[in-house]
């Protein structure tokens, strides 16, 4: 394969207080893959994404995006945080939240205009939420909130997407809608990294996978490395029993 490298992580180590949460992570993610990060609770999956995005300061290590430091490549990267990380009772509308995706390209002080609004409406349409554009965000269901977050990232028109558990607490129809959008992104040559919990759907949804449990256990194509051996190493219990194939 002569794929370009989209994301390269070297020696990344993160600790809260004394306990390391991520230990010496090396990771190379090729361009155009749809990758799941899997691992047990407390394995540092969300932390890995946050450290790559500079939300959490790592103790050591570096992150490069297409060969340059992340800080110089921010515009190429979009982030979908966990739905539960914000207060949905905040006084604003669905459209307004999606518009926030345009703020990065606008920079300081400049206000969003018609162009930004048009982009936001298009993104809402893509996630099937156009008719909810004026809806108060507190009136949206969990699945709808997740779609709004996805739309906000789509507006950024990035090359790389990081998503923190986008399927958590959403119904089946939203899950299918989201995975279809992710697959479309991959088709368009984008790289998508998803923190994922449901092991059963990994082979169906993703083509690339990273096993993580504080240390990196394995990373590569799903067809090559998504096996009982790695699952057992990651989760510490025999997965032949847990995942019925």
């Amino acid at each position, binding site marked *: 394969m002569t794929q370009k490298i989209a994301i390269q992580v070297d020696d990344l180590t993160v600790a809260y207080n004394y306990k390391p949460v991520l230990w010496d992570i090396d990771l190379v993610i090729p361009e155009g893959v749809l990758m799941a990060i899997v691992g047990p609770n407390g394995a540092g999956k969300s932390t890995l994404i*946050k450290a790559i*995005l*500079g*939300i959490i300061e790592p103790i050591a290590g570096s992150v490069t995006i297409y060969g340059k430091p992340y800080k110089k490549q*921010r*515009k190429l*990267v*979009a*982030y979908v*945080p966990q739905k539960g*990380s*914000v*207060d949905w009772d*905040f*006084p*604003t*509308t669905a459209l307004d*939240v999606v518009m*926030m995706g345009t*703020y*990065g390209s*606008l*920079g*300081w*002080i*400049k*206000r*969003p205009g018609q162009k930004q609004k048009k982009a936001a409406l298009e993104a809402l349409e893509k996630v099937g939420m156009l008719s909810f554009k004026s809806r*108060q965000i*507190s009136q949206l269901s969990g699945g709808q909130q997740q779609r709004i977050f996805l739309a*906000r990232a789509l507006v*950024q028109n990035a090359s790389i997407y990081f998503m923190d558990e986008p399927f958590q607490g959403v119904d089946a129809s939203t899950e299918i809608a989201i995975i279809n959008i992710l697959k479309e992104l991959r088709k368009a040559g984008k790289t998508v990294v998803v923190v994922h919990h449901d092991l059963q759907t990994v082979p169906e949804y993703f083509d690339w996978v990273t096993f993580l449990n504080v240390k990196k256990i394995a990373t590569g194509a799903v067809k090559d490395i998504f096996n009982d051996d790695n699952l057992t190493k990651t989760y510490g219990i025999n997965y032949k029993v847990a995942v019925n194939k």
Partner: protein
Amino acid sequence: MSITEYFNLLFTDYTLRTISLGTAVLGAICGMLGSFAVLRKQSLLGDAISHAALPGIAIAFLITGAKDTNILLLGALVSGLIGAFWIRGMISKTHLKSDTALGLVLSLFFGFGMLLLTYIQKQPNANQAGLDKYLFGQAATLVESDVLLMVLVTAIALVVVLLFWKEFKLLLFDSDYANTLGFNTKFIDILITFFIVLAIVIGLQTVGVVLMSAMLLAPAAAARQWTSSLAVMVFLAALIGAFSGVFGTAISASQDNLSTGPVIVLVASFFVVVSFVFSPTRGLLFKQIRLIKNRRDLQLKKTLQFMYGIAQTHENIDHPHTIRILNNFQGFTKKSLRKMEENQWILLNKQQWSLTLKGFTEAQNLFNQQTQHE
């Protein structure tokens, strides 16, 4: 003096006009910036900061020996800022929860401030009297230069809020995301905190250390009830704050021995109570009314469905049945039967009822309707 007299005097009396303008401007800036504090769930930050300002006032007096308001407020600003950033540091560097950090800073600074105030009062110096007005505030001491300062600070705060509106909103809603977009969230956070401290400091003379946080919270909490837009909320909070200032001043000026600060706070709290009860969407009253109405509605429909079940056992739907048949079903009363007749779902004839065609189709579609409403 009656309230109407007050409003007449407002246009003629210089002192009263100065004080009213001062409290109005103060209410406006507090409402505006208080909205941000409330939405950041930092409601108590204002309380801690205002208490933290007290030692600054005392120290400024001890150093200069003069009671110049601007110098005292400068002292308040410095110690308020120290308190605010101490809280920030404590929360980010230690494992203390924010309420603990706020409580610690509040009591530590306030205790120290009180200590200094008592020390100052024991001094053989006639100049020291009146520093304790910063505890509960004394609007009557406002002079034109004080009000000018308030107007200036408010104008600057307004410009900053308008300029950084987008950044403020982003930080309030999702600060991690703001970070990934390349915004320096620390800077935005410090900017907001700085202006909140500034608003508190200029209010100390009028409302005082103890009640100052209410000026920040009450208008914002009231405004939140009426709107679901951040811009409207901030504007409304400023308006409620300003109105509370003027109205509180009016009440306190028209009665003897009513000190202005507490009255302003009470007026603002009145707005909170009214808003929590009467707001059409979030208010308790209309929520309760809607709840009761919905339950009645559902009960009525359940009864209809029960009747539908009975009517289905007969060939013609309008076959009359005795009301007694409904007895083992508790969801009906005479009133609800009459209501159903009004809806033309049933016909009542003495002790008998029969389903109409309208009632029959209504019952048929009941379940579909109910789920569609969701």
